[in-house]
């Protein structure tokens, strides 16, 4: 099963190390392959460096593509992280 969804990044400082690590943590137990596309660049969401290299700022809309047996739950959890506002110090 493949799901593609456009998601707005709500975190104040964009997709920095913490949200990227949180996404990698979620995906550790998931079987689906997850890709983020932003400004024509597509990266594997399991890669922290990959997400960071996209340099995504607040309110940017990214395309999330999830494919696999647990696509629905994976998409739900990834979207939650992208919508979440991390506590910034």
């Amino acid at each position, binding site marked *: 099963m493949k799901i593609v969804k456009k998601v707005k990044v709500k975190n104040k400082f964009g997709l920095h*190390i913490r949200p990227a690590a949180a996404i990698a943590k979620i*995906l*550790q137990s998931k079987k689906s392959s997850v890709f983020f596309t932003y400004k024509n*660049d*597509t*990266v*594997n969401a*399991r*890669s*922290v*460096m*990959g997400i*960071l*290299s996209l*340099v995504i700022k607040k309110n940017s809309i990214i395309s999330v593509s999830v494919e696999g047996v647990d696509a629905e739950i994976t998409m739900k959890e990834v979207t939650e992280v992208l919508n979440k506002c991390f506590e910034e110090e």
Partner: protein
Amino acid sequence: MPQVKDLYNDFKEYLQLKLVTGKRGLCREIKKAEVHSPGLHLTGFSKHDLHSCIFVFGALEIEYLRELDKKKAIERLKNILSEFTPLVVVADNLPPPLSLRLVCKEKKISLFSTSKTTMAFLSRMFFLLHEWFAKTEVVHGTLVEVFGLGVLIQGESSIGKSETGLGLLEKGHRLISDDVVQIKKRGTSLIGFGPELTRYIMEIRGIGIINIAHLFGAVCVKTETTIELIVHLEKWNDSCFYDRVGLEEKKCNFLGIGVPLHILPIKPGRDIILLIETLALNHRLKATGHYSAKEFTEKLRRNIKNQKFNENREKSKSEK
């Protein structure tokens, strides 16, 4: 898309550019990888669409413009240059004629002069534009230069790509990029490099983010390399048959160019770093004309042939 100011700021010295007029045109985008000398178009021939092209005026064009009546020159220039023209360059250090300056000002086009000859400027521009507009692909993997050979290590997440890369660095090889590798086509070669932000940075599970250039020194890093080998790491699967002789060559395609692919199964006791070093050395050996597997097959074939010949000879002797 690159802007005129990117070209001006980054390659001012390489192209020997001097801004004459049209500061406001610096923000204009360069949309096409095309550079033209207006030549015939100055005579009024305008069947070919040259919008969005970069124009280079050489000695001949400038001479022709000077000889033309000012009004006519402006009219002809207006037919060629438009609000889509990114920039105009006058080569050979020639002073741009008034008509050209007026039209560039009106159309808000950046007008430059260069000390380079038309040919030298054109060749440098072609090279730059070719680089800028070259197709790029982003892949997941670790790119390391092993014995001077660009080896792209791929495989599923958490298979140990970064750890293998780290092991290779420890042995004196060079890191180009970890996790995110950008690939660009240059002629018939594939050039691999990392995004500026994550350059020389590695993320190792259990350690975190480390800077390779700081840890191992500048000798262990490189900005780009030609990708000549792909190594795909995968978990050992007993039901899968792995290459035992090396006679078949698998290829992986990036941007229309095939690169030799080797699948390396991971199992306790298999030293992946040593295996990758051996693969790289074997690849270099092949490039020098020595193909171990083929050479061995040939030797074996010769031996079998000789054996048959000897058998036949003995047979015929005994019959006699």
